[in-house]
């Protein structure tokens, strides 16, 4: 081999079949046999490493490990975890991939950064009370000039460039929060802005086609940790079920009475909040996906009125009024706030969701699964979630602190 030019191992190619096989065997062997030897009596260093791994996703180097261990010893594990969260990779990787599945129907993590994801990342970084995530007049973007293309209502290029250019999302100068209503071309007033609900990415995912009920369903999934099957309650009145829902599917109304009604009786009154919203797609096969959200105050979008002949005696949408019917029935246990229980548009709707007990618990449960790599599985886990939820509320809905407190719990020597 002495006369061979230097062979690259880039792209996974290395010369010699036997060597590849040897390396692969070793890799797998290390995974299977020596991958993890947990010491139940691990010390502070081990705990800090584990916290850092869980929160940031990368191991700390020796200096950082020592610094965080020092914080742990002097200020406690929660403070050490909070310090670990200052790592930029927490924002660009952990948080980005934590939020991305919320922003698309497929719930895939393999999607580029967008204004929805960016806004959650920014809110966590800046400790913006997370119970405003569905009601704030706020969106995060890069500072002017940080990437070639600025924010646009009609494409996602700005955010894709933030990601591809590895802009540091932990940098408060380069990555900033601004009012949605101030964005160029915005059709959203400050009174209409509803946090991530009125971002472009949310519109693209949940206002496109359909009847805008999708926005309600995915809001419940992402922020109440409940899909419609979980919320199904046939005991609620049927007066706000829209005209497009047939009451006798296939000529058998018992299907409606035992199934359809259970979701629509709660969903349709809530989804009224989105009556003025629509996603207008760009041209077919447009690589830049130039669609945008439109908002037409005072004008109900046709999608809320389609197929009215399916049941003309059903509810006809006339404005963006919404009402929370789940305050009664089995879903009353979700702990709804006393107000708002009805309103107009997505802002008050978002406030109703994010001030419920279920919202607070859901955020903690999501973080728990993210940091602990598993859902709650014991009474001790549930007690921890309850305690952290109370802390979440008491600390101004700081989601950053939730990450830290969950990490504190999951890295306890007795909690593994």
């Amino acid at each position: 081999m002495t006369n061979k030019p230097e062979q690259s191992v880039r792209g996974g190619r290395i010369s010699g079949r036997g060597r590849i096989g040897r390396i692969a065997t070793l890799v797998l062997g290390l995974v299977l046999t020596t991958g993890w030897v947990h010491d139940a009596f691990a010390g502070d260093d081990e705990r800090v490493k584990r916290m850092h791994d869980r929160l940031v996703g990368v191991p700390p180097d020796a200096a950082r490990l020592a610094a965080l261990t020092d914080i742990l010893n002097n200020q406690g594990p929660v403070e050490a975890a909070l310090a670990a969260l200052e790592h930029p990779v927490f924002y660009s990787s952990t948080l980005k991939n934590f939020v991305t599945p919320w922003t698309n129907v497929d719930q895939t993590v393999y999607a580029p950064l967008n204004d929805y994801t960016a806004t959650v990342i920014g809110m966590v970084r800046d400790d913006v009370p997370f119970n405003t995530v569905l009601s704030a007049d706020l969106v995060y973007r890069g500072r002017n000039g940080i990437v070639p293309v600025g924010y646009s209502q009609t494409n996602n290029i700005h955010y894709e460039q933030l990601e591809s250019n590895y802009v540091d999302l932990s940098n408060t100068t380069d990555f900033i929060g601004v009012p949605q209503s101030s964005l160029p071309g915005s059709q959203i007033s400050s009174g209409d802005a509803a946090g991530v609900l009125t971002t472009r990415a949310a519109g693209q995912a949940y206002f496109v086609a359909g009847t805008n009920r999708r926005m309600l369903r995915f809001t419940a999934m992402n922020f109440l940790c409940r899909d419609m099957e979980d919320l199904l309650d046939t005991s609620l009145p049927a007066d706000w079920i829209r005209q497009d829902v047939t009451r006798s599917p296939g000529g058998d109304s018992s299907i409606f009475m035992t199934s359809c009604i259970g979701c629509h009786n709660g969903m349709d009154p809530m989804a009224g909040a989105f009556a003025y919203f629509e996603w207008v797609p760009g041209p077919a096969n447009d690589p830049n996906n130039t669609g945008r959200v439109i908002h037409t105050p005072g004008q109900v979008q046709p999608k809320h009125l389609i197929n009215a002949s399916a049941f003309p005696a059903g509810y006809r949408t006339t404005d963006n009024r919404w009402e929370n019917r789940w305050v009664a029935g089995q879903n009353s246990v979700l702990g709804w706030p006393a107000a708002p229980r009805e309103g107009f548009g997505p802002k008050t709707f978002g406030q109703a969701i994010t001030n419920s007990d279920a919202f607070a618990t859901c955020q903690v449960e999501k973080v728990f699964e993210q940091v602990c790599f598993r859902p709650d599985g014991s009474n001790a886990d549930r007690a921890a979630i309850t305690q952290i939820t109370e802390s979440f509320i008491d600390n101004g809905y700081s989601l950053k602190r939730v990450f830290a407190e969950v990490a504190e719990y999951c890295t306890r020597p007795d909690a593994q």
Partner: protein
Amino acid sequence: MTNQKIGSTPLEGTCGDLTMARKRNRFRPGVLGTSRILFAAISLALLTACGDFTGGDDPNPDPLAGGGSAPSGVSEAEQIQFFSQTLWPVLNGNTCGSCHSVAGGRPFALADPDAALAYRTLVNNSKINFGSPSASRVYVQVASNSHNCWTNDCQADAAMILQQINAWIALIETAGGSSTGGQAVGQQGTLLSDQVAATNGVEDVGGERFDTNRIAFWRFDEKTGTVARDTSGVAPAMDITLGMDTVFMDSYGVDFSAGTASASTAASRKLYDHIADPTFGTAQYSIEMWVVPANTNQMADMFRYSNDIRVRQRLYQYDLRNRSTAPGIPAGNGGSAQLLTYDQDRDLQAGMQHMVMTYDRFNGMRIYVNGVSTGDVDAFTGGQLWNWATNSRLTLGNGGDTGWFGQIRMLAIYKAALKQEEVLQNFRAGVGLRLTLSFDVSQFAGTGSRIEMSLSQLDDQSYLLCQPTIITSNVGIRVRGVRVRVNGTESPVGQAFSRLNTVVTSPRQQISSQCTMVENLPGPETFQLAFEGLGQWLDPVTPTSWPPIVYDYTGAEVLPTNGIRDFARVNETMSVVTNVPTDVATVEATFTNVMQQLPGAADLRTFVSSQQVGIAKLALDYCSELVDDAVERDLFFDQGPVFEWNAAPAAAFLNNVTEDKRLRITGPLVDKMMGVGLAVQPDPNVVEARLLGLVDGLVADCGSCDGLATRNIVKGTCAAMLASGTVQMH
């Protein structure tokens, strides 16, 4: 006027003592002024000829005692007065009047200086919702649509409007006697109408149908037997005989379970004679059906006149075929679709639909669904119908393996192509049996008070009770929370009127435009209405309290407490430990390529070997960049004795009794990638021994290699460590 005098009116005997005892609770001097009491008393005396309205409170009212009435109604003059005291000053006193007045010239003079005009404009145009004030259009326009707010705070302006609407309602209610709070009816569940049997309903023939040129008509109202009568009155009657797997429905119609129903060939000749006969035929026709496809998964005939006309279901599409002499038409018309509704429109749905197919020479076929043209165009026009067979036969449904499942609730055939307005008229006329039920509520709402509802059978499982309308002379009373009972039982499901909450403002008032569904129980049904509030009486439903969520972890699966790094963490971790930036072109390209091959989540149970291959591939790139960069590799490896990067493997990895040069590579790899002194990591000696074994093997394989091979061995050893579980699990 004294109590005795009222009680001595000539009609006193119609009420009785118990009634009077109950009525003594209606007015309390502490609540209403004397003049109001006198007014109410006089009015009621005239209306109901019943006695004493001035007595004290009865601690045990008996609302079921019979007779009696609510107090006096509210005249329009009073209502205008209340409006003038509440909402009107807000509307007229601010910017609304600039436009919404006679002088302003805009529609709806609801803020006109003439309060009476403004009042009538508001009420007659439904700008006020007395049952749900926050749904009032006059409020919504400001609260939701920021319509010409008069201050900079639209919500404050809207709140002012809402406050005054509520004040207005309170005045109406007070005048009507159903003041806030009301009077508990006593025993729960007793604020009821009388019971009405379905058989006591008055048949509502519905809207007038357009039936000119109708030559065949089936209502399918037989309910029993096997023959559906053609009631068009056009001879000969084309009666249809039901075959296997077809039954009449109680709610009128025929239910098909892959069965067929057909007319005789002789009777079916009527269609040919009226439509296709070259001498007498009109050469145009219409097929009108109320149809309920059972699903959208089937492709089968719903209606067929042999091969001359076919109406088929094709999933979500209507598939229409008409035999004619038009050129290019599919052969025999029994095969290919001729007019297929646009698939994306999904015009056919698995619910009750009104479908009309028309044909005439100039337009070919057209189709209307629920009164509206689908807009689909027939490509084959201009044909005559002279090629129709004289022995064609009308068949409904489709038997066999490709049978059609669904219901046909009505069928009509015309010898003319119906026009759009005629189709719409017939759609609006509806289908099936409809009755008007009248529920007596005079016991609580005053003499003569009743609630009428339209009863129809939606299908064999349910009834629809629609558009409740209250008829009462006691304007101003409130109706709240109406629920329907069937045979004395109240279903917890549906109950579309249970949130009804409205103030009656006219003697005959529709209190909902909606319908509620109730179950069709076996045997004869009686219906009854239950109220949460009616007039001044209250019978609230106690909300069900739900226990808190219980988390039960019994038998919960024990899950891994460690995880594999996901794709982003794999990439970031490799970058952090090798100090090779993620944006180096080679690693960036490889990461992009293998990203979705890498783990998508931390769950160890989902880890598969292909993910490990992706991790190894990326690790090799990071290690290549590290080793090929002289500065970075020195920083990583050469902090002690310097490794001989250009020496042949045997020399570079020399291991003898005096020195072990292999450790210059394996030592930094273990320490920097795994961490030092971490009890949670594997034993570093074990890991390093594995790496040394790898190095030895590669060196032995190499034979007479040069420095290039040395660096490649380092890259491979580095990748083995970087891609291993010690780094990638956490």
